[in-house]
């Protein structure tokens, strides 16, 4: 356990460092990840300590970063590629969809693709265009990828280590507006088994037990859920909170168990709602737990618009009132 709470960014940094110490094949690559330590300082100090053969400052080309990571993985490396901002991943999208996701399938298992693609995502930081998007659903739609999002310092550390240890490609979403929020971190060396497979990476988790309404989300919206649960409790309503963590595959077990108890589900996400994780969760809960539902699955999500100018982003993003309003509507049904 660290002596004092650490930020999410620091936990990620510690996770990278530990993974690099454990396995010489783990390399970090991306724009400004070396000398600068990344624009969010997640890779701070790694190049200094591990050398520029382990931490590669790349030319400014996202397809190049992903495409060369594929070749490095074929060569036996475990690349951790950083995409600087969510809105910059699209030049690399072709390589992610056409190669990263398909190389193992195409080669009938001859090539594994142990690549982690780290993407800071989400809004709420007053950024200019292309710096505040929530593109996670694109990747969930692609067979061959795993998609996860962390929300706490502990998960940031555990999930990143698990993602790096995984032999499948993992698109790893980091809640950029929560980078500087602190939490406790247990980074004690674990047993070999749990170090290579901590459960956090590919499972969802109940963050707060409740009885009236289940509220599920992931990444940057989780703190909103905690506030909503407190506010609802003051009004005598009990919310059960789920952090999905694994977006593809979704770990539906805890969600279904919760819905069978509460009968009501609200799903919260910054992403536009059309063809989204919130849409998928609603469909699947309806398929699997229809008779347990006392109300339709309700969504608090982004609008189906391009991300707005930052002076309007509070209108766009999920917030406490929007979540409480959805809870009210679920209860009123």
């Amino acid at each position, binding site marked *: 356990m660290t002596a004092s709470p650490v930020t999410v960014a620091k936990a990620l940094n510690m996770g990278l460092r530990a993974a690099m110490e454990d396995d010489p094949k783990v390399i970090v690559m991306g724009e400004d990840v070396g000398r600068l330590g990344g624009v969010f300082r997640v890779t701070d100090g790694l190049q200094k300590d591990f050398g520029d053969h382990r931490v590669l400052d790349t030319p400014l080309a996202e397809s190049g970063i992903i495409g060369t990571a594929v070749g*490095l993985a074929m060569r036996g490396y475990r690349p951790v590629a950083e995409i600087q901002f969510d809105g910059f991943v699209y030049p690399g999208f072709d390589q992610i969809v056409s190669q990263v996701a398909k190389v193992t399938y195409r080669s009938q298992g001859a090539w594994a693709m142990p690549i982690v693609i780290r993407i800071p995502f989400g809004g709420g930081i007053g950024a200019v265009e292309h710096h505040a998007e929530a593109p996670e659903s694109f990747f969930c739609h692609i067979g061959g990828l795993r998609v996860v999002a962390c929300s706490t310092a502990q998960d940031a550390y555990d999930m990143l280590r698990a993602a790096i240890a995984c032999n*499948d490609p993992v698109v790893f979403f980091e809640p950029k507006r929560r980078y500087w929020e602190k939490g406790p971190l247990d980074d004690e060396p674990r047993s070999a088994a749990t170090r290579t497979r901590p459960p956090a990476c590919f499972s969802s988790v109940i963050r707060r037990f409740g009885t009236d309404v289940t509220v599920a989300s992931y990444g940057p919206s989780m703190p909103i859920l905690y506030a909503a649960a407190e506010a609802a409790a003051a009004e005598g309503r009990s919310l059960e909170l789920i952090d999905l963590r694994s977006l593809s595959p979704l770990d539906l077990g805890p969600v279904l168990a919760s819905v069978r108890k509460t009968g009501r589900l609200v799903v919260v996400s910054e992403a536009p709602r059309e063809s989204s994780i919130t849409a998928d969760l609603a469909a699947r809960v309806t398929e699997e737990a229809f008779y347990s539902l006392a109300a339709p699955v309700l969504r608090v999500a982004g609008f189906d618009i391009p991300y707005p100018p930052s002076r309007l982003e509070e209108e766009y993003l999920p917030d406490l009132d929007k979540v409480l309003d959805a809870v009210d509507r679920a209860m009123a049904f």
Partner: protein
Amino acid sequence: MAADLPDADHRAGSSNRHPTTARDAAARGAAGLRGQPTPSEVIAGLRATSQGEDLVQLLSPEGTLTPHRDFPIDVSGQLLRGMYRDMVLVRRFDREGNALQRQGQLNIWVPLLGQEAAQIGAGRAMRPKDMAFPSYREHGIAWCRGIDPTQLLGIFRGTDHCGWDPKATRFNCYTIVIGNQVLNATGYAMGQRLDGAIGTSAADGEDSNEATIVFFGDGATSQGDVHEGMVFAAAFDAPIVFYCQNNQWAISEPVGKQSRVPLWERSTGYGFPGVRVDGNDVVACLAVTRWALEECRSGNGPVMIEAFTYRMDAHTTSDDPTRYRLADEEQHWKLLDPIERVRVHLSRQGLADQDFFDSVNAEADALAARFRAHCIAMPTPPPERMFAHVYSEPHAQLDQQQRAYLGYLASFDDGPTVAATSAGSAGGSR
């Protein structure tokens, strides 16, 4: 021009390389077969039949072998006979691929006709430890890597996406998205450098060094991935040979649509050498590729090669070249045939007799028959195959989909009808 390629100052870039006037272009051979080009032709790029004075050629179309001072090579009768055999066999099964498509046994075939020398020369230049990243027309490279031609069939019959082990053969799966493989190959070569697999002294044994070679076409040079691959390769001094088979046509678009300048000259902009080789001259392709791979193995990569050749057949069996190009262009290139010039040389120099040619033809026919029989006997894979190897690690959601779908299929079996599994679990549900 090719004479000064290995020089250090060339790598840093040199002047006077780009045709700035029609006269310059004409001096480079841009006029092709009919005199001075118009300024618009200069802007549009070289005509298909314009080879330019920089072309490295050792074996002329008439079968005359002339040493090249920059690319020395020992050419024995055995080597020439071997390459002749390779080219004849590859062409023979390639033709069989076309026939199998016409007869409904293949969904599509991608012919390499005309590019045999460009591929056999490059393929034979590789050592076992070198890594190759093909596009999808590299049947000749596959042949040189020890891939049995029947292993190519699954992709085109629709029974698999890759019928060989790309890791064990060091021949990656065919890559169909144009240019993607150039970045993947560059990454692999970056890994070779990180591993210290290049530039070791001869005392360590020359075979400890490795290089990567990536194959792409003239159309691919317009792709961002090819550009980024060259940028990354230069930035990381990657031991990679960019082997561009300029076969003059990207389906219907002539190379002039892709570039104003000869493709090999692009290497200068990235800061590494480029060579244009006669892609129909198997000796030149071998000599130049050997040199380029050795440059990479010794730590002087990357290198670009433009193999100037011609796609004698359609883009694929789905294509109809009569809609966009004239037969006289194909006739011109027929005179430059990559196999015929070797045959002429072997005959004229007394390096092979009629028995040799007859035996190669007989071997080719036997290969074609085996290729055909294998193709026709290839079974459709079982449905569960489509769920295999999506991931390297267990994936419960996919396992559930597979179970549900197999249960759904089983519900059609004779006997009492059984519900697939839980409600709504068939088909695409997860």
